[in-house]
């Protein structure tokens, strides 16, 4: 499994620049390692903390309360249609938290697993990718809170809720691109780890998390959609609030384009610096 399947008589050839050929095949072959690394992160996380799962409930819930009070009650921003402000905020908070936790966990993952990188071969991409599963578990916990909120406010989702998995996937894809890039840069510049939380902090306010994306003036909405999270958050609200929050097709298309671009760029820079990880780390 380390290099070629047991019965394969075909020799593995290692040459400069040749690694690309086997890379994507290896990624698939190492899927068990991917799962076990994710499992390790989850196991360790819940072994080390007392509040454990409770933390996954408390954090998004408190953020939702604060945003609802500040933006909804004090600043009196309008909600989407007739939807309760709290539900609208939470529907935006879900994808944002998913994005932010993947970005911050994945970006430090290569450095955090330096001992593995310098001692064993496997496609390095597995390390940042495995953090996605951990973030998805937190996401599922938040989904339970959302269900509770919807029951509390009596919000009945439409058929659009069935499309939610697609937007979850888009949120994951959207975070992986920048995360791969940040993980690779962090190997060399360790203080880059201070920049990532800063970006997620700023991003929380420039993305339509605490307010509705609809309050952005029409002429700016295309530009605003260059932030790929705009399309994803809009999509989430559309799935959860249905007709109260119609999806802006054009803006969404721009966001999809940005996601694809980020993904390509992240994968490319990760792959290019990856072969030097073991030399530098």
């Amino acid at each position, binding site marked *: 499994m380390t290099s070629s399947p047991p019965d394969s008589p075909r020799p593995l050839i*290692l040459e400069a620049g040749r690694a690309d050929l086997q890379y994507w095949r290896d990624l698939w072959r190492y899927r068990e390692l991917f799962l076990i690394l994710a499992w390790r992160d989850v196991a360790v996380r819940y072994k080390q903390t007392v509040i454990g799962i409770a933390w996954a409930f408390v954090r998004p819930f408190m953020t939702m309360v604060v945003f609802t009070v500040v933006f909804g009650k004090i600043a009196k921003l309008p909600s989407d249609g007739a939807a309760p402000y709290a539900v609208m905020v939470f529907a935006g908070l879900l994808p944002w938290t998913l994005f932010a936790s993947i970005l911050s966990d994945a970006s430090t993952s290569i450095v955090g697993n330096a001992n593995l990188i310098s001692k064993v071969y496997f496609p390095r991409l597995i390390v940042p990718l495995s953090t996605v599963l951990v973030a998805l578990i937190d996401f599922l916990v938040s989904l339970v809170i959302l269900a509770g909120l919807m029951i509390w406010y009596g919000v009945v989702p439409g058929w659009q809720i069935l499309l939610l998995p697609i937007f979850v996937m888009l949120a994951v894809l959207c975070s992986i691109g920048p995360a791969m890039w940040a993980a690779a*840069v962090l190997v060399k510049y360790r203080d880059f780890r201070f920049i990532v939380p800063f970006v997620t902090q700023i991003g929380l306010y420039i993305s339509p998390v605490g307010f509705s994306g609809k309050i952005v003036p029409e002429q700016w909405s295309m530009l605003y959609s260059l932030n790929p999270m705009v399309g994803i958050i809009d999509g989430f609200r559309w799935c959860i609030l249905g007709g109260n929050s119609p999806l802006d097709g054009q803006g969404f298309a721009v966001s999809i384009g940005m996601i694809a671009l980020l993904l390509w760029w992240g994968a490319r820079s990760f792959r290019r610096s990856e072969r030097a990880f073991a030399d*530098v780390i």
Partner: protein
Amino acid sequence: MSDVVIRANKIGKKFRIGHNMADHGTFREAMLRGPRNLLRGVADIFSGRAVVSGDSIEEFWALRDVDFEIKRGEAVGIIGRNGAGKTTLLKILSRIVEPTEGRLEITGRVASLLEVGTGFHPELSGRENVFLNGAILGMSRAEVRRRFDEIVDFSGVEKFIDTPVKRYSVGMYARLAFAVAAHLEAEILVIDEVLAVGDSDFQARCLDRMSRVAKDGRTVLFVSHNLAAVSALTQHALVFGGGRLTFDGPIAGAISHYSASLGKASSSGNWGRARNATLISATVLDAEDRPTDRYKPGTPLRLRVVFDTDGMPGMSLEMVLRDELNLPLAFYSSDIFSQKSLPSDAGRYECTVSLQPYYLAAGEYCFDLRTTYTQIGDDHRVENAARFVVDVCSPDGIPYNLAQRAGLGIMAMRLEAPLQFTALPTPGPG
């Protein structure tokens, strides 16, 4: 010939090192290092090229023009001094680093053990770590499950298998880690110094396991400084020096080639930098404080050591004396034996370790030096830091020269009181 499982053709590995470089650059430093470097750094960041910081970049070849073939079922030793390129070769073979030039063909699954217990997590139990470590080494979950009992049995920690490994003793930890590695099902095993763990009983079991692996028709590549272990395990060896393959042949020839090359090499040089306390040089001194490479048995054995320290408290200077086979003979630790830590003011220091007289057998010896966080771990470790030769070992001018090669030991025993034969009454019959 189809029996060749590893074929290396002119492989080389080049590293780029930047001068003027701290251990890990920081973004702030990069900013301050002038606009040219910044531009280069930023371009590197965005395009995802490997970034090397420093005002000037130097390239050096850790390995160059290496050709060899290894056949199925062979046990091959890899020997060489520090920095000779052994580890780089292992890392290329195990695909951790990519060769810069040349071509390597490998037939079969490679399992590399550059360290035991890679990826062990202290919070997880022994059982969980077996699965984690197995997956990291390339075993499938089904494979680990199938061999789980065997692994636990081999390690001898079954009672604690559900205890977090942070509560294990060092020995238990190492045994469990080695047990996982020993049960890898790979056609080619690449092993680096993993035998340096555990007690001697466990080491013997490891050696036994290794030789069984080799007899099973699997290929074993074995790197070690322990020449006795290498010669016990392998029939064939590659000797490296300065990044090049200098010898490829039977193990006996390899060991004598290696020993000869050690004698020629100078004992000083650049040993790199450590985190807190860096060894700079080590010199054997004669009675008049002059550097020498000869030692006269029965006189004080004196070694002058120069080191830098950043003032980290509780550091110790340690040394191990080794013989021609690189077996450890004697040990000294400044902190443990003399309650003396390295100075707590930063700076460069010199000290002379003056050891009591020994009657060492004729032959070659070397000192390994290291600075350590006392009883925790090594900071700077320099093997073969200083070498010396004993020409003649004839205590009190006896007409006999005890030599290491005689295989009688490495020291002439000296009497504390005169030897006397006292007649005893002859035992009666029955």
